């Protein structure tokens, strides 16, 4: 094929499609390769989509985008074998008018094809069921891709590798090293069908309101990570996501951990009588700021999971960062085209845009989360168990005088943790997360 494109994008996930949409609107010729049967076929996330960037890409997206419910309620639960303590927040302000709090539950198998379709309507050529095996080089500059099809060599001024967490292209270009197990998480998820009214009654929702629930500690056998339930219109997204080294250490497979999660008394009641409609698993790049590879070189940019752009704090933000990186990559390419310079130097505004935005600022702020989680296993096992035990003692009714109960409670606490130690631990937690 002698035709040359301005930009070849590998991966029609949110990063690739956001880039394709932005570039095509500027009149650049764009081809997007997607290895799945259709965009989104191979993609998954827990379930909450933040939409600040989407609203820039497609203003008033809520009128047409296949999002499920606006998230008006957030809940964080701490589980032990038999107990649960939770923090829950809901606010009517999150429910006032679109785009609500810029957070929606969604299913990627529906959202991703929609975003890709927007890019296609803007003029991008989307080619599904096509794997890209390699880059084409001209000296030190990337100048195209090799797609696994007859006549699959495609030339382009710039290539965007938006090929996901395992980005083979980033590796082939020497932009990233092999991963260590502690920087990757594995998620297993089921989409469980329930009638709309049941979901609304069971979770205290009205209309299209939704809740994001996350569960820590015994929910995932004390591993670094957590479990989740996000409400969709007529389904629940139910899953677990834990660090790979935790799975290796515990010698448990993700599917078994998910089954265990679903059987917990706190979870079982929320999903009962549901019908499992889909099962999926995926890796999540959770290494944060320190794991972000070199994100550009001559003729090549990395975006989305390929650039390790996931905020693994309590916000669990990945898809929004992917769309942001796709948008910034496209903007940088548009500027580079005006200068006619697609070298590292010509494309460097991509890096600047990421650094000046919430994307890198947030990753930087939460850069210690991953290391903290691995260095403090007690926060996933011993401390939650102790806390739940103390709360249980506090509320257990007996003829013992309350004064005695509380004294015993304090004694129990002291045998596990000195007040000074507790102060230090809490301070570390605060510094890492807040």
């Amino acid at each position: 094929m002698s035709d040359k494109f301005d930009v070849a994008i590998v991966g029609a996930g949110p990063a690739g499609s956001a880039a394709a949409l932005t570039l095509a609107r500027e009149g650049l010729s764009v081809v997007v390769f997607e290895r799945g049967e259709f965009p989104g076929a191979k993609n998954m996330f827990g379930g909450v989509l933040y939409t600040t960037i989407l609203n820039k890409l497609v203003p008033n997206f809520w009128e047409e985008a296949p999002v499920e419910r606006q998230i008006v309620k957030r809940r964080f639960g701490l589980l032990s074998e038999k107990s649960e303590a939770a923090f829950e927040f809901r606010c009517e302000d999150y429910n006032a008018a679109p785009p609500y709090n810029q957070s929606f539950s969604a299913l990627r198998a529906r959202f991703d094809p929609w975003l890709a379709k927007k890019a296609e309507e803007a003029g991008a050529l989307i080619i599904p069921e096509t794997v890209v095996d390699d880059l084409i080089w001209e000296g030190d500059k990337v100048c195209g891709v090799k797609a696994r099809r007859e006549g699959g060599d495609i030339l382009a001024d710039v290539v965007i590798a938006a090929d996901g967490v395992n980005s083979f292209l980033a590796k082939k270009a020497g932009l990233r090293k092999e991963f260590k197990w502690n920087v990757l998480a594995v998620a297993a998820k089921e989409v469980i069908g329930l009638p709309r009214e049941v979901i609304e009654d069971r979770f205290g929702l009205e209309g299209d309101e939704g809740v994001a629930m996350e569960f820590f500690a015994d929910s995932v056998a004390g591993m670094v990570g957590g479990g989740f339930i996000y409400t969709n219109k007529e389904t629940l997204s139910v899953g677990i996501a834990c660090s790979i080294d935790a799975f290796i250490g515990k010698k448990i497979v993700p599917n078994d951990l998910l089954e265990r999660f679903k059987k917990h008394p706190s979870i079982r009641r929320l999903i009962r009588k549901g019908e499992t409609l889909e099962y999926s698993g995926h890796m999540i790049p959770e290494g944060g700021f320190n794991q972000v590879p070199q994100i550009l070189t001559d003729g090549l940019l990395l975006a989305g999971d390929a650039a390790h752009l996931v905020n693994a704090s309590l916000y669990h933000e990945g898809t929004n960062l992917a769309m942001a990186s796709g948008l910034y990559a496209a903007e940088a390419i548009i500027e580079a085209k005006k200068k006619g310079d697609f070298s590292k130097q010509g494309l460097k505004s991509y890096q600047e845009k990421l650094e000046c935005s919430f994307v890198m600022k947030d990753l930087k702020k939460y850069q210690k989360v991953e290391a903290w989680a691995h260095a403090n296993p007690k926060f996933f096992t011993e401390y939650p168990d102790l806390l739940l035990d103390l709360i249980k003692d506090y509320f257990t009714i007996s003829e013992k005088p309350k004064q005695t109960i509380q004294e015993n409670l304090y004694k129990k606490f002291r045998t596990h943790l000195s007040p000074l130690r507790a102060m230090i631990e809490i301070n570390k937690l605060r510094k890492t997360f807040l």
Partner: protein
Amino acid sequence: MNIAVCIKQVPATESKIKPAADGLDIDRTGLSYVVNPYDEFGVEEALKIKEQLDTGTVTVITIGPEKAVEALRTCLAVGADEAIHIKDDALTGGDALCTARVLAAALKKGNYDLIFFGRQAIDDDSGAVGIHVAELLGLPHVAGINKFELNADGLKAVAHRQIEGAAEVVEARLPAIFTCQKELNEPRYASLPGIMKAKQKPMTVWSLADLDLSAEDVGASAAKVKLEKITSPPVREAGKTIDGDTAHAVSELVRLLHEEAKVL
């Protein structure tokens, strides 16, 4: 040689099918679609003949909603030259004969020497449309072919059919209709240039009016067969496990076979 291939877009084979709420269709939410695999054999055979003769055109024809255009593009990407998309809301509720009337009208507008169908569509499995079209057009028809050869003069073709314990070899004078069975060939994958060129290839869209047909001819009111209901096959009940020590379990099993299953 002008070759037409009639194709249908069907739910992908791995789809989880359940009846729609009204029981008159399947629930189509979240389904992904493919070109009916038997039709792909027809497309491949047409392309092979064109390549062998080094001349001619391959036209793919489908009836279906807007979405069916994807199936046509897939065929264009592997090498078909043009596509005809017949869509009309009035077609809803028609039967195989209605579909055949529409396709016959469309085929009459082209001057085709050879027409391929899949032996059946894997969604409704009726396997009737190709035969009906042959009847309506007064053409020879060979069903379920697994080998095809064009005679040197290009006026006749020989096709093989698998029958119980033997192969039947049939000759037909062209133009003729052949419905394709598996083993006929190995459908090719689209090349990248093929996929790109497919976007530029001609796509004709016809409504019933373009074919001088009306809803009375081919719509629900013309159907001789009416779909009454689609239901799921009965769910198999879970087996029963008898706990306890072997001696007790055996006597319990015998009791259940005798009293509940009533087979002893």
